[in-house]
């Protein structure tokens, strides 16, 4: 097992190198972060040259990548070069963004998983009942929904709900413009009030989409297992319905969903870009879009270092969990 993990991690190193090199070259050659500076009043050609030299932009791309790589491997994540100013350090910016996205995504994904799995199991156990049709069609509808439209709709009904609250003489509850800086303060009740208000809308928007995938998946795998021979045997032995469903079927039906969850979670941590954009959270997705828009390779590399590692780790984790839950699969 340990040998397997080490081998997988070693294989992913060249992939990470090639991927980061490709991204660096793409961003570095796509545009010039100093382009805007040229139009500022009082900026001479000499100033531009000096700024270029200060940021190392006068060197070839390959050398710039090599410099970044050696710095990075010695623990220096470098500084953002957006707008021609080397002011923001990359490392704290990326960890801040990861913290913002993480807070949002972990809750939403766990809720979606719990709900999705319960609904999927119920729909499979009561196949062709009204509940099943309702759950299946909801999941199908959400699956075909554009995420950004869901986010826009949720956000606007949230605002309307706030207006209703206000007209009743209460405080506005739901936040639609990102988390407040500096955390929550006040009495326990106030903190809960603010906390739920901040998280509710983006969580719901994120959840609806993931929920659709999990419930569809869980229903399909549960049905397949409920129709399998060993479940019939268990029933024939006279084991009670509840025990058959939870002991024999449910635990096996969880295997594919666990894999899906692990893969999905790694991907979603790299930024719920649309939800973040609509609800004004400055998380990983926003960081990515901004770094590309501003032709800022060091920032993009910082983003990539975190997300690529997460994706590799969660993919590995998915395979390990698969082998752990299903002993028939041997890793080696």
């Amino acid at each position, binding site marked *: 097992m340990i040998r397997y993990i080490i081998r997988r991690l070693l*294989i*992913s190193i060249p*992939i*990470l190198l*090639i*991927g980061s090199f*490709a*991204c660096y070259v*793409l*961003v570095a*050659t*796509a*545009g010039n972060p100093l382009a805007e500076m040229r139009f500022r009043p009082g900026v001479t050609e000499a100033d531009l040259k000096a700024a270029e030299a200060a940021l190392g932009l006068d060197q070839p791309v390959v050398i710039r990548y090599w410099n970044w790589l050696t710095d990075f491997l010695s623990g220096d994540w470098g500084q953002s070069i957006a707008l021609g100013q080397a002011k923001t350090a990359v490392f704290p910016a990326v960890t801040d963004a990861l913290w913002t996205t993480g807070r949002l995504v972990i809750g939403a994904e766990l809720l979606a998983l719990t709900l999705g799995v319960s609904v999927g199991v119920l729909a499979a156990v009561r196949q062709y009942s009204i509940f099943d049709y309702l759950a*299946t069609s909801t999941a*199908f*509808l959400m*699956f*075909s*929904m*554009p*995420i*950004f*439209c869901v986010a*826009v*709709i949720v956000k*606007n009904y949230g*605002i*309307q709900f706030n207006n209703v609250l206000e007209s009743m003489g209460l405080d506005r509850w739901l936040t639609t413009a990102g988390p407040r800086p500096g955390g929550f303060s006040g009495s326990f009740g106030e903190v809960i009030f603010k906390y739920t208000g901040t998280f509710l809308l983006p969580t719901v928007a994120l959840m609806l989409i993931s929920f659709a995938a999990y419930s*569809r998946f869980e*229903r*399909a795998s549960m*049905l*397949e297992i409920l*129709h399998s021979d060993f479940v019939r045997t268990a029933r024939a032995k006279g084991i009670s319905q509840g025990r058959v469903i939870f002991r024999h079927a449910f635990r096996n039906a969880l295997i594919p969903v666990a894999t899906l969850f692990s893969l999905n979670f790694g991907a979603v941590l*790299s930024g719920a*870009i*649309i939800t973040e*954009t609509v609800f004004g959270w400055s998380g990983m*997705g926003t960081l*990515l*879009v901004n770094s*590309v*828009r501003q032709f800022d390779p060091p920032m*993009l590399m910082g983003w*990539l270092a975190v*997300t*690529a590692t997460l*994706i*590799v780790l969660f*993919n590995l984790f998915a395979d390990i969990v698969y082998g752990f839950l299903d002993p028939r699969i041997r890793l080696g």
Partner: protein
Amino acid sequence: MANINLASEGGVVNSAPQSDSHEFDASKTRTQGQLVLRRFLRHRLAMVSLGVFVFLILFAFVGPFIWTYDFEDVTSKSYQPMSGTHPLGTTQVGKDMLALLMRGTGYSLQIALIVAALATAVGVTFGALAGYLRGFVDTALMRLVDLLLIIPQIAVAAIVVKGFSGSWYVVALVLAAFAWMQIARITRGETLSLAQREFVEAARACGASTTRIIFKHLVPNMIGSITVNATLAIAAAVLTEAALSFLGLGVQPPDTSLGVIVLENYGQFMNRPWLFWGPFIVLVSLSLAVNFIGDGLRDAFDPRQTKVRA
């Protein structure tokens, strides 16, 4: 090398649709294509969805010839409410919403169809080659897929769109570059098991080349899952294109697409809701219709699955 194809009639259920002319017995024998078509035509939801899909195609490509306004026409008044002359109102700059929707649907459809075609062609070729040849080709493919998992599609789209151009076909190329992996993975999996069957061995014994075995023997036997996944790729491409355009990283004005229309008008959700719900309904019905067609095709190709899957 005349008719080695006979080999593919061996072990596989309902394969080889070339046998029509030889049939002479009284009872009607149906080829696989006919069977699938019959089952698909009887799938009520899929037929309704096909109707919706055809309607949307007509709406997008025939509509502009009938409707009086062009999507580039700028009328004098911005934000007109719904009326006889502008059934869906006008936008901020005074463009007719219905004309915009027709154009946007057209671009979204064009992009989605090209993405699905490219992704299927590339995915099937790579997947089948990797699954059949194994060894080095297989490893190379899997590493490439790993690489594309790490490189963010958004970054590539943004760079291509900002650095080069935001024409619809450029967006389609970016989408296709990230869409073929899914199909390649499925094709590879199926090829791995099909390649062990006797008819492939027989073809190889007859001296058939790799290309011939892949495209004449393996691909026809996977046509079901290829068709289904190509359909689902269309639906995915519609949504991804819209999402990219919504972030401003897809189709760029003056071109338009459903995502661009939503982006330009979602701020009016409260005051002029029709400007949001119009493109929203077109977008959702397009992706729902294509997904239902895919589901219908899945059932038609593999009727055993209907008992279990949704």
